[in-house]
């Protein structure tokens, strides 16, 4: 295919740079990807930034008034806007502060200088502007990123699976961790990672957020049976899905 290259911009908001590492770890795929896309705006990596793009990839969550202003500007410039990673897609780890007093947190982090750092409740990008598609995960799985890109370049707005990690876990032939008393979040967590963690014997942290209609009552019972306290269960649920839980309640 010798179609015109897709002009892509990458923009970062509040996040941990893990999504960057995920992209860089795709070193085998990158040359092929760059056959099809032209990076016109890569965070601070390019001095002369271009706003003439076909698609914007957003990393990080929205946490300050300045973020809101900037994401609106990007949305205006980009015909298609894609969130990349848990923070921009579901609020991510940052949303762990959901439900806590904002001033208290600012005091904790910035001390007396807290008034220099205006903050907002943590939001996924979709709470501020329209999002056309999302690449889930913390970090995003390179295979999932590649799958997204090929489908996207083929003219499809890729949809993330709406079923839980268990499907992919069973395709790998894994024995269920939750059945063994290990508090795995896979049963309520959106698939697409290929059961990355449980296949290595590590319980799922829920980094891709909740599936629609996740049975959280049943999860609480199961986690209690694993020996977790209510506080520990809440912590597990809020680790990535604080924003989604807030929406549910």
């Amino acid at each position: 295919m010798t179609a015109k290259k897709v002009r892509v911009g990458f923009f970062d908001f509040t996040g941990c740079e893990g999504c960057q590492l995920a992209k860089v770890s795709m070193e085998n795929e990158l040359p092929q990807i760059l056959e099809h896309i032209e990076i016109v705006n890569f965070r601070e990596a390019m001095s002369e930034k271009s706003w003439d793009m076909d698609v914007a990839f957003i990393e990080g969550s929205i946490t300050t008034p300045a973020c809101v202003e900037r994401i609106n500007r990007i949305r205006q410039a980009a015909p298609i806007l894609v969130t990349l990673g848990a923070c921009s897609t579901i609020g991510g780890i940052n949303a762990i502060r959901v439900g806590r007093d904002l001033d208290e947190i600012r005091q904790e982090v910035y001390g007396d200088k807290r008034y220099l750092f205006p903050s907002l409740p943590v939001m996924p990008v979709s709470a501020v502007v329209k999002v056309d598609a999302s690449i889930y995960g913390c970090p995003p799985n390179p295979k999932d990123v590649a799958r997204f890109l090929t489908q996207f370049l083929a003219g499809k707005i890729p949809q993330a699976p709406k079923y839980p990690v268990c499907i992919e876990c069973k395709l790998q032939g894994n024995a269920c961790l939750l059945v063994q008393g290990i508090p795995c979040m896979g049963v309520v967590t959106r698939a697409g990672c290929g059961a990355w963690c449980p296949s290595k014997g590590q319980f799922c942290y829920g980094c891709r957020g909740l599936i629609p209609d996740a049975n959280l009552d049943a999860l609480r019972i199961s986690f209690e049976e694993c020996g977790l306290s209510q506080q520990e269960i809440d912590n597990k649920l809020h680790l990535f899905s604080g924003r989604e839980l807030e929406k549910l309640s």
Partner: protein
Amino acid sequence: MVVSIHSGYVPQQAKIVRTEQMTAAEKLFELQIPDGPLGHEPGQFVEVSILGVGEAPISVSSGPNRGPNFELIVRKAGSVTEAMHQLGAGAVMGIRGPYGHGFPMERLKGSDLLFIGGGIGLVPLRSAIHYALDHRSDYGRVVILYGTKNPNEILFRREIEEWKQRDDVEFFMTVDRGSPDWKGNVGVITTLIPPLDLNITNTTAIVCGPPIMYKFVIMALRSKRLEHDQIYVSLERHMKCGLGKCGHCQINHLYVCQDGPVFLYSDIQDVKEAL
């Protein structure tokens, strides 16, 4: 020795001969296959594939006696259909099928036909309407009821005008919500049924529409004293393989892709997941 498997999934190339934007969301594709015609029964469907994007089950909308090509009317509703909408004349898509049981046009010879299409449900019905009109003397009355949500969603406008002109077709339509320039009926499709003067013993109803429509249409037909074995319905499900295996289209014990999509209502009235 190695053996090839899954030949049943291999699509043949279908060339787009002509397209026509029918509404904002629906586009007509006239397709040609190397060894055409397709050889379908009215009411059957094909699996359309856009390589690299995926497959979607689409009803054949033209009658089997309308030349070597066939027509699909595709609503933009998912990634495959969106990709299809980007294609124009000369482009190629994959086709496999036709699949399933269609309308039993041969068995219905001599019968009065009452077609009831809701929204995009007219698309599969049109293949049977074509068939009836192409074998007009084989059938009694041909009555067509058509309802859409609003005037913007009306399909086959030119053809509808032809049906209205014919004195051997009785065509009635309605929209759920009118618009300032809409002069026709306003109301749900079931409102078209009570005024009909039907020869009850010799009428077969052929119904296709959104899931919500069936219950009310069948109730209206029942109050006209039509029996359950005088009603055919065509059901929409996600037929992914078309071969009665993948399970996505299953309703209770039936596979819509193989046992349907057309069912005699009396055969499925006790199949709880059907309607």
